[in-house]
């Protein structure tokens, strides 16, 4: 659990952040999203004390961040920075081993851990002995992630980890990150200025604007009920309705009674796939089946349209 309590930050007398209060539950994948300069990185870097707040306090598992020596704190928190920030004079292997070595792990344990983490981050063995400049951008990002994971921290901070990548590589790495989060249950705080990335990854989304939280909640909550015009615009205006359908399930607008029809869909499918199915088949009503294939009701196009409006 990471808690921000009325945190503020000033540069040259100008408030760039806060007062900001926020709590990120254990195991969340919290995405900080907002336009450039809104204070996302500042917020993130306060968690591992790279930036100290001018007012308010930050607690990790009820322990104030300021009560630990900063280096010790940071060794326990994974950190992936934008553009990699790999040490150019060290091989991939040594980059990954940075924090374990800072923590004086035994040699054998470090070596074993390098292989383990490389596997998790899908880094091929052959890459381990290369220098960072001999890697592609996507490979460098993976090494950045592997380095953050190396000492098995409970919390991982990521500042625009997929910023400079092509859409295909980006999507692949996003998928792997989601899998990693699912498998390890670590708390991940990720910064991006890309709303689609936020929606694709986040379990919690914090939309920021000019140093303040414009809105926070689950992706569906933010899509369904943007609290201000800013949030509405940022999540994509009219397009938001389509995005929202991604987060709602067929079972939410299911009508009882078995209107039989030759095309069907399942209860746990998203409304978006139901709509797609209707468009490709030319039907306005689909039969709904449950997991085991039994027909449980039907879904009507006007209900989907209604759901997207909320």
């Amino acid at each position, binding site marked *: 659990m990471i808690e921000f309590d009325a945190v503020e930050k000033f540069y040259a007398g100008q408030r760039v952040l806060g007062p900001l209060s926020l709590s990120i539950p254990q195991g969340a994948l919290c995405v900080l999203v907002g336009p450039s300069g809104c204070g996302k990185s500042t917020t993130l870097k306060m968690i591992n004390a*790279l930036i100290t707040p001018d007012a308010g306090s930050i607690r990790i598992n009820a322990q104030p961040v300021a009560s630990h020596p900063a280096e010790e704190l940071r060794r326990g928190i994974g950190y992936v920075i934008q553009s990699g920030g790999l*040490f150019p004079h060290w091989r991939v292997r040594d980059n990954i081993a940075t924090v374990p070595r800072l923590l004086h792990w035994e040699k054998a344990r470090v070596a074993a851990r390098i292989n383990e983490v490389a596997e998790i981050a899908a880094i091929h063995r052959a890459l381990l002995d290369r220098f960072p400049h001999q890697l592609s951008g996507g490979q460098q990002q993976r090494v950045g992630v592997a380095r953050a994971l190396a000492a098995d921290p409970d919390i991982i901070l990521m500042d625009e980890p997929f910023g400079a990548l092509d859409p295909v590589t980006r999507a692949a790495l996003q998928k792997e990150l989601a899998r990693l989060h699912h498998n390890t249950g670590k708390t991940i705080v990720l910064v991006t200025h890309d709303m689609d990335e936020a929606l694709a990854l986040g379990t919690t989304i914090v939309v920021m604007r000019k140093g303040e939280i414009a809105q926070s909640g689950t992706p569906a909550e933010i899509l369904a009920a943007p609290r201000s015009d800013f949030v509405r615009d940022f999540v994509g205006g009219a397009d938001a309705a389509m995005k929202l359908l991604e987060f709602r399930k067929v079972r939410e607008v299911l009508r009882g009674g078995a209107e039989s029809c030759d095309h069907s869909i399942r209860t746990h499918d998203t409304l978006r796939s139901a709509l797609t199915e209707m468009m490709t088949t030319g039907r306005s009503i689909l039969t709904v089946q449950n997991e085991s294939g039994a027909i449980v009701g039907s879904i009507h196009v006007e209900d989907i349209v209604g759901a997207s409006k909320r």
Partner: protein
Amino acid sequence: MSTADLAATRRTSRLALHDRVALVLALVAAAGSFGAFLSIAPNRLADGRPLTLWNVGLSQTAIVLALLVLVFMAAFIGDRTWRSGALFASGAGLLISMLLIAGTAAAAQLDPQEPARRIALGSAFWILFSVGVLACFQGLQHAARIWKALLSLALAAALIAIAASGELNSLSLAREFHAQRATFPTELLRHIGLVAAAVVVASFCAIPLVLAAVYRSGARSAIFTTLNLLQTIPSIALFGLLIAPLSFVAAHVSLAREIGIGGIGAAPALIALVLYGLLPLVRSADAGLRNVPANVQEAARGMGMNAQEIFWKVDLPLALPALVSGLRVVTVQSIGLAIVAALIGAGGLGTFVFQGIGEYALDLVLVGALPTILLAVAADALFQIVIANVRSRP
């Protein structure tokens, strides 16, 4: 016959210029060869009578002519490997034959009636020798690294062997070297010692300055303004400015006098060389340390390295090539400046230079100047090899 074949035959059958550098070298050499190859004077002070390369002897003339024609023809060879080979071969041939011809021609000019006769190398020798060096460079340009190194080393070894064999002993330059054989090693060692001491002391003095310039932003501009000011002062003036205060110290502090500090001699020379060395050292170290990418430094902090760990494990290794290139600049620069130090009695190879200038002994000037140049070029090459190989380990 396909069009490609046709094109290929046309390419090979027609005479075409492929390397204009080789052509220029051949023309320069041809023009230069008409100057004095040797200059023969009855003594040190008299003017010399020129002896051109074309009057040295039939076989010598034939060899040089053949080599020049080879350089010329190399310009028209289409295949790059063959062209490079021809250029290097003719360049190496020129270098070796120049030395040998100069040696034998000088020996033939010796005259027991005229023991003070001075047989000096003339402009044609120097021009053809330079063309030889450049032809070798041009020939080796596209060669693999290992070939470059091996061939240059072999060539250097051959030239040194000729010089050491006694073939050149009749030349006045060699005689001058011979005449100075008692003092030359001492002065050479002094020169090197002065440079080494200056580089070491300057490096130690640079450390606090670099740390202040990089990590205390307030001190930066003052440090650079001061060092730049020092660097601008002409060497001989800085030596001169140090004489008065140091002789004052020597006159009033007996301890200083006992350890050899005085207005002239090694002390002002060392101090001046150190002062000159500071700017290149501080500038390159500063650039190296400040060019460590911000995101790498942030990553290091984010991983939990403390200030010392960041300095030793990240900043310093990444700045290492810059640090070494700073050392390179200072070493090469000090080798040159140490010549001037001879004017204030610090010794070194400059002693020969200024003694030669004073006595109108031009060969003596060369005895000082040529080794200094070789020393500087060698130090530079050595440092380049080191820089190419510094890659730090974690």
